[in-house]
Every structure is written in C-alpha cells, then in structure tokens.
C-alpha cells in the first residue's frame, strides 16, 4: 500500500510540474471559470429589455402619444425613431434599426372615445426570435393596462391570482446559471485536460517509457488524476465564492452534500477523460471526442441553460445519461432550495454509477492496451 502511495505520489508530482510550468493550463483552470461567470452572469439574461422599437403614428393624438409613452416607459422597449408607414418595416428590419414597429392607425383616439375596439399593429422581426417572442407578450400586457386606464372605471375582478415565487423571487438569471457554470467548467477542464495530458504521453512516446518503470497502471492513472482533481476542487470553490460574492448566490442547504456531489462528478469526468485518451491516443481526436461526449451534452442536455422538459422525448432520454444533469440538479437544490442529503440520494447514486463505470472501463482498457 505504501509503495502504491509513493509511486502514485511521484506520478502526481510529475503531473503537477507539467501543469505549474504551463501558464495556459492555469489560465483555463482558474481564469476561465471567472470569465464564464462574468459573461453568463451579466451578459446572458433571458429577460430581454432595451428592444429597439419604431413607431408609425398616423393618429397624432394625445391618446396615441400616451400609448407610445406606455410602451417605452418600462424600459423593455426603447424608442428608435419613427417611420412614415408600415411598408417601411421590412426595410428597417433588414437594416437592423429595430426589432418591432408599432403602428397606430388614424382614428385611434376616436375609436377609444366611442368605446369601440381600437386596433393597433405590431410588426415584428422574426429573425430575432427571442426578442420577437418577448415583444408580443409585453405588447399584449401593455395594451391590456392601457385599455383598463381608458375604461376609467373600476371593475371588480371576478378572478385574481396571487403568485409567490419561491427560491429566486427576483428572477435573476445568475442564480440559475451559477450551478451550471460550475458543472460546465468541471466537465471542460476535467475531461479535456486529462484526455489531452494522457493522449500526449502516447503521442510523444513517453507512455512507453513510463511502462518501463516499476510504476503500475493503476498508479499512473491515480497519479495523473490527483492534480486535476485538486484543480477541480479549487474551481468549484472559486465559482461558488465568486457567485456568492458578485451575484449573491445563496447556499441554503447542506454543504457536505454539495462537496460529495462535486467530488463524485469530478471523478466521473476525470474517468471519462482518461477513457477517451486511452481509446484515441491522439490529441486532436481526443479533443473532438471530448467536445462531442462531454462539453456539448453538459451545455445542452443538462438543463444548464435550456430546460430539459421542453426537449423532444429522444433528447430527454439521452439527457438521463448525462451526469452533468444530476450534478446541476443537486447544486440547484442545495444552493437555492436548501436541500440536503435525503433529497439528493437518487442523483448521488447516478453520479456514483457513472464514476465507477468510467473508472472501471478506463482501467480495463488500459490493461488490455498493453497486453
């Protein structure tokens, strides 16, 4: 046992020297998580605002101006000038001047005065689908408010809904994204860096040299993985600390569960990286294989940004094989909902299963490769 530890420690020492002499590895390990956090936390907000709006006001009445005021008051729409007629909309969209054009027909104020239905038009640039979608919803709501105001009398609502939002009342994207960032960074660094570092030994022939030393297969793998495991732990702490400090991400639940889940997830990812490198033995192929099997699924099929419930059934099925999905579930549960060990048992079991599968396959493949 002590021999095993000594040899594994020697391998780990060698790998640590590789890493610490390579500024790039440190960048990706420590700077990339923060860059991602800042870009996703500040830049990617699915609550869209500042949508450029152009108007065609053919009515020129105080009422029509009040409606335009309503549209731009809340900051969702920003006035980007006016057009002479709706026919110019397509051209304005092609030139990216606006994403929506509000047209108020002649007689708008008259229709309101007569208690009739006043119809206004909203032309939308469907090539910017996210903005268009949001614009339709917002415009309907704004028109409803404006209708009530012009009614001028109080209506007793027959039905009212009281909504409480739990866990993230302000609806901030950062709270939602931080757990995913942590998973994505681990998937990226653990799978990719280990895959590249092992594949490089094959490519350069230094793996053969290692085989001539008394170090055993298991010791090579353990020694290779330990430094990356440590790096992963630092990354998780970094993302969570920065998330808490910059975006106020809470940690309401059991931190032991969080640590355990992170460790299991990392072991699975490291195992996957080793497996890829043993199968491919080539850095270029290893990167593409890691992209396909780890980074893309961790981004797209894990619920990181896009909810899994919304996907076609086949993709939902595949998403059950993506360990990041379980890890993100646990993280969100612990951080936002205050969950603990008992709520996370199933997800933890899945992470254990994935990690053992990857490690087992790696060891088996590694032995066979040599024989």
């Amino acid at each position, binding site marked *: 046992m002590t021999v095993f530890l000594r040899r594994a420690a020697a391998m780990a020492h060698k790998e640590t020297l590789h890493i610490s002499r390579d500024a790039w590895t440190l960048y990706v390990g420590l700077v990339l998580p923060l860059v991602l956090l800042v870009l996703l936390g500040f830049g990617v907000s699915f609550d869209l605002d500042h949508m450029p709006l152009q108007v065609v006001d053919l009515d020129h009445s105080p009422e029509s101006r009040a409606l335009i005021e309503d549209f731009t008051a809340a900051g969702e729409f920003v006035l980007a000038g006016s057009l002479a007629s709706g026919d110019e909309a397509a051209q304005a969209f092609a030139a990216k001047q606006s994403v929506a054009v509000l047209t108020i027909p002649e007689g708008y104020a008259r229709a309101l005065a007569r208690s009739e239905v006043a119809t206004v038009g909203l032309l939308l640039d469907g*090539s910017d689908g996210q903005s268009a979608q949001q614009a339709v919803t917002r415009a309907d709501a704004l028109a409803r408010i404006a209708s009530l105001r012009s009614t001028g009398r109080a209506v007793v609502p027959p039905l009212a809904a009281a909504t*409480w939002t739990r866990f993230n009342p302000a609806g901030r994207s950062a709270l939602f994204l931080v757990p995913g960032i942590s998973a994505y960074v681990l998937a990226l660094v653990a799978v990719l860096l280990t895959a590249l570092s092992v594949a490089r030994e094959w490519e350069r022939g230094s793996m053969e040299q290692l085989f001539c030393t008394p170090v055993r297969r298991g010791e090579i793998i353990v020694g290779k993985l330990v430094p990356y495991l440590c790096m992963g732990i630092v990354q998780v702490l970094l993302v969570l600390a920065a998330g808490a400090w910059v975006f106020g991400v809470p940690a309401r639940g059991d931190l032991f569960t969080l640590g355990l889940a992170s460790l299991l997830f990392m072991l699975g990812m490291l195992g996957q990286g080793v497996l890829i490198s043993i199968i491919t033995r080539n*850095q270029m192929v290893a990167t593409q294989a890691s992209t396909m099997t780890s980074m893309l699924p961790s981004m*797209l099929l894990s619920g990181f940004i896009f909810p899994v419930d*919304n996907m076609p059934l086949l993709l939902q099925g595949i998403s059950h094989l993506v360990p990041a999905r379980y890890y993100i579930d646990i993280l969100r549960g612990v951080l936002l909902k205050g*969950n603990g060990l008992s709520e996370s048992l199933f997800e933890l079991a899945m992470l254990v299963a994935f990690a053992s599968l990857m490690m087992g396959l790696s060891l088996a493949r590694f032995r066979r490769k040599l024989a």
Partner: protein
Amino acid sequence: MMRILVQLSAVFVKEVRQTVQDKRVVALLTMVPIVQVLLFGYAIDFDVDRVPTAIVDLDDTPESREVLQGVLADGTLASIGRLPSIPAAEAALESSEAAVVLIVPEGFARAHARREPARLQVLVDGSDPTRSSVAAGAVNGFVASRLSALATAGPRIEVRSRLFFNPALSTPVYMVPGIAGMLLLLVTTVVTAMGLAREREVGTLEQIRVTPLPSSVLMVGKVTPYILIGLVDVSAALGVGAWLFGVPIRGSLLLFYAVTAAYLLTTVGIGLLISTLTNSQQQAYIGAFMFMLPAMLLSGTMTPVHSMPGWLQPLTYVNPLRYYTECVRAILLKGATAGDLWVQILALVVIGLLVITTATRRFHAGAH
C-alpha cells in the same frame, strides 16, 4: 509566380494527406457539425411549454375544476396530478417534481357566487427565471382574459401582431444560422491552431523551416484545406437546417458562400495566431477555447446584443461571429443583398486580414 503556385499546392497536398491519413479525424470533422446542428436545433427551444404543474384543489367544486381546466387549457402548464395538501405541494416543488403549484383555496366557489374576487394561489419555482416568468404569465393571462370577457362594454385596445421572416416564430429557424457560425468556429479554429502546434510539438516545423518555403506561402497552404472543410461543413449544416427545420433560403447562395469564406478567413486566422502564441497542442486548444467561449456568448446568437449591458456591447464589435451571424440571418431569412450587409462584410474582411498578417508576422519572427 509559377513557383509560388507550385509551393502552395505542395503545402496544400501535404496538409490534406496528413489530415485524411487519420480516418477518425475525417469522420469527426464531418460528423461533429451535423450532430451539433441536430442537437442545437432540437435541444434549444425558447417556447417554454408543458411546465410540470401540481394541483391542490382544496375547494373541490365544479367552479374550481372549471377554473383549473381553463388555466391548463393552452398547454403552457401541464398537470402532473393532484396533491392532497399545501405541504405536499411544497415538497414536490423542492424535489423538482413540479415547477408550479396551483392552489384553489377553500371557499373559492362561495366567493364566486357572492361576486367577490375569488382567489387562486400560485407557487412558482423561481430557480429557472425564464420558466417561472412564462408560468406566471400563463396564469395571469387566463385571469386577464376572464377580466376582459367581462369588460367588453368599454373601449379596448387590441394588438394585432404580424411577424416578418419567421411567421411561425420557430426557434430553429433563427437559431440554426447562429449555430452555423459557432460550429465553423469550433471546427476550423481548433483544428488550425492544433495542426500547427502539432508540427511544432513533433518537430516537423523545424524541418519545414529549412525548406525554401516563404512563411506566407506556408500559412496560406496550411489554411486552405481547413477553409474547404469549413465550406463543406456549413453546406451540411445548411442542408440539415433547410431539410429538417425548415430554415428558408431567401437570399443569394453565392453571397452566403462569399460571406462564409470571409468569416472562415477570420476563424482560421485566429487559429494560426493562437498557434504562434503556444508551444503544444494542449495549449493551443486551451487558447482556442478561451477565444471561442466569449465569442459565442457575445455573438447575439444566444441572446440579442441590444439586451446586453452597455459595457459588454463594445466587445461584440470585434467579434467576427457577431457579424457572421447577422449576415447569415439576414441572407437566409430576410433575403438581404450585399448592399444591405456591406458594413458586416467589411468588418469581417478587415478582422480577417488583420489577424492573418499578425499571425504571419509572428510566425516569421519566431523563426529567428
């Protein structure tokens, strides 16, 4: 002139042979883009619907059932079943079984009969803000429709929406053009950066340097195969997009390929530049990734540029992916012409030339 062409084709042939030699690389270079378009196309859907909803009906009257049915009618919320009590509903929310809980309190029907406001209670899991706002919107929309059904007597403002270019507002139609740019970036930048780094790592770069090849010829010969691969990949992506997701092709294909070529110049140029800054394939990959990730997030593909905070927006001006995405969306969906897009095309060409000359210079300087 003749000599340069001979040299160019020699480098080109060498590069192609080296790439084709490993069948797995070829398979990956052609398969990855198609898988990506499929994944992105099917996985990303900004129309949130079928939000799992638990129901707690404490009133259990015909009125309460009718209202619950009405809220669920448009399919945004999908019932996962009835729960007996509010604590049970909260547990479902915590375990993520449900994202929304609709509660009809006792006395709902009675309040309704007395013409008092009858209250529905809604619990929403806010950890996913997009989903929670859509869910709350669905309930409020239903409530408002009841209200306006009552207030038909007064004046009313109605919005009639008309969507240009993408009438069904299908997500893949506007996402696929953005994805095309992302996958070109993923394939060409990484492969170029790693290809040159590999030569340096294995030591063959030194051997090439002893030959009479000028470094500019070496650069051009090296990137040409990757530009061709990029053109093949983008065609595959466009084919899948048009065939499976109904992405229209309204503009000129010639313009599309010209813009793609200009964009590829920037992506392979950045790959070359990264490879002159690094010593190994691992570093080259990391370098490429450090560029690609921000480029994708700041391209306007995932979220529109005008909704980003003001201090981030200037960064998008140096991002070739932003210009390419704008061009492709405009050409495919709006049928834009070169005249409409000259700013974007000019920006791509300028960035491309700048990057490639810097890379060649650095490469040249590194030789001494």
